[in-house]
């Protein structure tokens, strides 16, 4: 894998609403290497989107990044002004969104929507842009691309629209593509196709991809590393094998238990995690997961856990993993219940 492309450090973002400060992202650190595909997983409201919108400075008011750095190729994106960010967005860094039905402009042809990105960054002629747009539609496997350029978004199905979004995001050969739940709004079969397409693009074009999802199952085969988020923090980070076969965080266990598995013989009951995500207006003082955690200790209520690492590149935010925690080994045995 390549060198570090994006390094996010202590990123902290809040929404200053009338009710008070919604602490959406609370000190997130992670890095993404060039050409790598990383998954970010977590339930709805865990702060996945806000984290990456903060990196791209695409937050809408009242959202505000109050601390942290986001180094992209060594330069802090959070220090850049709107003019500098504009030049980067869509060129070096691009993003696709959850709902392909509403993310494309209904009154412009898809050709125009692809070409305008090219023309704003590359200053090429309309003809060259059109040529490139056809190539891009071919790349994302849209049939008869030449004619489809003149079609409007409503003439496409959801899956096709998402392909158009991907083509648009790839138009300037970005180094990093952020895909925010690109398949959540689609049918199951289409979901798999979109993820596969992203995987192929990452391989062929060597584009780094951050794949945000709340469904671990969807990304299992595509990503090499998984970051698990909850309550605006990273709960666990590990290679995809470790997440699936050796998860160490109770929240990850919960996520795994709610994933439908094809490799399990008996018809398995899906068990979503009991309880609901914390109210980020008044997050718990300790571990954000403790109110729903079956293994919570006294300290979990009082103090945010530290990261405990069992190997390079993997860490888990849980007091149970503290070397001095009670019944530590019995706790670790439990992971077997969640993997096969």
């Amino acid at each position, binding site marked *: 894998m390549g060198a570090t492309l994006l390094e996010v450090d202590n990123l902290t973002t809040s929404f200053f609403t009338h009710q008070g400060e919604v602490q959406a992202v609370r000190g997130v650190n992670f890095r993404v290497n060039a050409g790598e595909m990383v998954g970010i997983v977590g339930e709805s409201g865990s702060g996945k989107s806000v984290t990456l919108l903060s990196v791209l400075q695409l937050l809408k008011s009242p959202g505000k990044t109050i601390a942290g750095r986001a180094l992209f190729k060594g330069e802090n994106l959070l220090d850049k002004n709107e003019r500098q960010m504009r030049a980067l967005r869509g060129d070096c860094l691009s993003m696709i969104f959850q709902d392909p039905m509403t993310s494309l402009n*209904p009154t412009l042809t898809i050709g125009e929507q692809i070409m305008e*990105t090219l023309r704003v960054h590359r200053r090429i002629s309309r003809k060259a842009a059109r040529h490139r747009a056809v190539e891009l539609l071919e790349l994302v496997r849209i049939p008869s691309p030449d004619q489809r350029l003149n079609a409007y978004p409503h003439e496409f199905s959801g899956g096709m629209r998402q392909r158009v979004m991907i083509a648009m995001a790839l138009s300037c050969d970005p180094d990093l593509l952020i895909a925010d739940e690109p398949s959540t709004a689609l049918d199951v079969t289409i979901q798999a196709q979109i993820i596969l397409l992203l995987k192929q693009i990452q391989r062929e074009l060597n584009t780094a991809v951050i794949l945000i999802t709340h469904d671990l199952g969807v990304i299992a085969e595509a990503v090499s590393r998984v970051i698990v988020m909850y309550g605006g923090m990273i709960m666990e980070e590990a290679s995809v094998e470790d997440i699936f076969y050796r998860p160490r965080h109770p929240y990850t266990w919960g996520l795994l238990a709610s994933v439908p598995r094809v490799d399990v013989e008996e018809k398995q009951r899906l068990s979503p995690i009991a309880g609901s995500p914390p109210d980020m207006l008044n997050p718990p003082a300790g571990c954000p997961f403790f109110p729903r955690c079956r293994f919570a200790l006294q300290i979990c209520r009082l103090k945010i856990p530290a990261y405990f690492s069992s190997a390079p590149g993997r860490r888990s935010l849980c007091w149970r993993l503290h070397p001095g925690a009670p019944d530590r080994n019995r706790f670790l045995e439990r992971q077997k219940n969640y993997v096969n």
Partner: protein
Amino acid sequence: MVITLLLVITLTFCMMHAVPGGPFTAEKALQPEVEKALRAKYHLDDPLWRQYTDYLLGILRLDFGPSFKYPGVTVNELIRKGFPVTFKAGVLAVLLVVFAGIPLGIVAAVKQNKWQDAVVMVMATVGVAIPSFVLATIILYFFALKLGWLPTFGVTHWSGYILPVVALAGFWLAFVARLTRSSLLDVLQQDYMVTARSKGLYQHQILLKHGLKNALIPVITVLGPVAANLLCGSFVVEQIFALPGIGKYFVQSISNRDYTTIMGITIFYAAFLIVMVFIVDLFYVFIDPRIKFGKSTG
């Protein structure tokens, strides 16, 4: 379109003949012979269906018949005399609504909750709340009587149009400014606006190409009827500023029970309105690709 128009014609015709009293009922009764002669001249003694078909045939030849009250003058002449004045004032009012209302709405939306927004919204709220005759009277009082900047009435000089046009446009200008603002604010919240930003487009591209084009769809929908409304003029405003427009004749014709004039002007308006709505529909197809002739897809 033709069917709508036929319906309007039939309806006005029936209503005209249903109201009690006729054009020749006056305080001072006419001598029976005179009335008889008049009725014969205007075919008022023909059976109703006969009058109706005659009238329809006349309209096909674009002939609305003679006025009952102005002997020797046809309704066509009245329209030809009054309409240009009304139309000119109307066009100016439409231009004012479009080129002031929409930009004001945009400014208000872009500067949401800033002082620019507050100024526009206060003006627009007042504009929507004040009836046109009050606005007409107020501006007449200040600009013509008090300050003496503009003529009080008549259109012998172009400046005579200013006050009536402002009075005509006032309400709709405020209405369109508000509508543009709320529509644009709504569009700015849409997902595709975030997409536009994430593509690294320039602010003006985001606002105009992605924002405004979508935001104008509801505005254009109302502009059609508004334009028709303004081009038909306002009888009240024409009265206040003594504009020699079509409204003057219409008001007079009603108090005079001048059947043919009432019907002629009504039908003329209806036809005009239908044409305007049709033009707006054409515009609509142009700006919103989801709408096609004959079918609409979501």
